[in-house]
């Protein structure tokens, strides 16, 4: 394991301290590092709180700030946060208009957020994201994972919350954005949980993991390494099959790196993915390219497509000022 760390068991704590120091203008670290919160709250605005296992940076703490989240609860690496974190975060940022949790669909996250909601003693609603088409969904199983599409939900619901939208409408909006958003990813090299000290899986030199999750969970199948075009065909193909957007739809394309894949490759994937979307008569009018929802030091990328309407576009374009996303402010 080669990482810029001191103690494998203190990675999260030291990284959060560096993060908080670097962004004192917009955020604060809660007591016991249980949450990251906006420095300045807007009275009467619904409080948006997300969280999840760490190792996906900048998700979620990097999205705390104007136009996105009010607080984020970082769990241990790849481990859902505990209910006390969400309870204390809610206590800190609820200004009376209620709290909306944005939760990625993993059983651990769901259970911990649910327990927090039960114990919080305040109005709480939840949006659960499940954009990963790699997982075959069925009512008998856990269902799809929430992956990179989560940040699109956080951005759009965050923008709507700034306008004073009430909690029930925000929840419907979040559910709707989630329904319009699909993702799928591929891993070229595995990731290593610092405290585990060894890779979560192994891949031969000529193999990749198609449909990988953001915890380095094995995906749909292990296949021989393929070209960016072939990978884009499979990822975008699976997304479009499931999303079934109308011809002529406008979409946002997010090409997301998993942590160890550089921009030169991500932009190349943008080129491949856009060509396929063009071919399917889907117009890409918004782009986001970078390592936004990562899996520690995993190499690979995911593609997310989100169908846009006028409201979605204006919510996406609305000002945002967080550590990881910033425009118009």
């Amino acid at each position, binding site marked *: 394991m080669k990482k810029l760390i001191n103690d494998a068991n203190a990675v999260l704590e030291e990284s959060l301290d560096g993060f908080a120091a670097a962004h004192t203008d917009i955020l604060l670290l809660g007591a016991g590092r249980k949450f990251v919160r906006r420095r300045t709250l807007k009275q009467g605005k619904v409080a948006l709180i997300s969280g999840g296992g760490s190792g996906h940076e900048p998700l979620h703490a990097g999205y705390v700030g104007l136009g996105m989240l009010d607080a984020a609860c970082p769990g*241990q690496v790849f481990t*859902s946060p505990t*209910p006390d974190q969400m309870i204390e975060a809610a206590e800190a940022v609820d200004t009376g208009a209620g709290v909306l949790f944005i939760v990625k669909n993993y059983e651990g996250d769901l259970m*911990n957020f649910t327990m927090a909601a039960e114990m919080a003693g305040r109005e709480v609603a939840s949006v659960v994201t499940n954009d990963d088409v790699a997982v075959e969904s069925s009512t008998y199983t856990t269902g799809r994972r929430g992956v990179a599409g989560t940040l699109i939900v956080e951005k759009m619901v965050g923008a709507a919350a700034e306008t004073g939208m009430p909690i029930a409408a925000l929840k419907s909006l979040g559910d709707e954005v989630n329904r319009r958003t699909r993702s799928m990813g591929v891993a070229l090299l595995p990731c290593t*949980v610092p405290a585990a000290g060894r890779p979560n899986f192994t891949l031969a030199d000529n193999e990749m993991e198609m449909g990988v999750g953001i915890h380095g969970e094995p995906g749909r199948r292990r296949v021989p390494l393929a070209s960016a075009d072939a990978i884009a065909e499979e990822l975008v193909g699976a997304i479009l099959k499931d999303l079934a957007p109308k011809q002529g739809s406008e979409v946002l394309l997010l090409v997301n790196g998993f942590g160890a894949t550089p921009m030169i490759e991500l932009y190349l994937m943008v080129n491949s993915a856009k060509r396929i979307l063009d071919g399917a008569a889907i117009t890409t009018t918004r782009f986001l390219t970078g390592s936004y929802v990562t899996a520690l030091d995993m190499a690979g990328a995911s593609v997310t497509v989100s169908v846009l309407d006028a409201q979605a576009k204006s919510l996406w374009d609305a000002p945002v000022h967080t550590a990881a996303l910033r425009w118009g402010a």
Partner: protein
Amino acid sequence: MSLNRTAREKLVRALAVSVIEHADELTSLDQAIGDGDHGLNMKRGFEAVLATLPALADKSTPEMLKAIGMTLVMKVGGASGPLVGTFFMELGKALPEEPARADLVAATGKAIDAVKARGRSEAGQKTLLDVLVPVQAILAAGGDAAAIAAEATEAAERTTPMLATRGRASFLGERSIGHMDPGSRSASLLIGAAVVTLEFEADL
């Protein structure tokens, strides 16, 4: 089957040590079909339990179990935190201070129901319920300590050929087959440790 302070302390220490010593094995199991944190999670939780051991042992058995459950919920995280935590909390709620064996059967049944409700899951899905449920059946059927411990070990092993439909391993579909479920392994370790201690201290 009542536990004095010394017995309570021994029980909690045995539980904690059983998972802490096997943390690396649990993590390896979770690397194969999950995300490689199960050993770390359980270790973190039970280290927090150990840190308050004297105060825990001061409590009555039901109060102690509830406190352990709350600590696990607040320290473990992931899927196992709420589930194992709920099990202990509900067990504490359901047990009288001086439980008879029938009380233990009833209380473990209630605790398992709470785990099912929390996890929206059933036995047969390759989760820790595949250890808890059959072990509880042996307990209910009057099995002795050895039979209970043996069933815990075997039940965990029986998860190996199962197809996961809950938990992170379910994302793997068919590829989840052939690996032991990490949560089942930790449950069997905890049960094994409990049984040994209770046999000596409480004449299980």
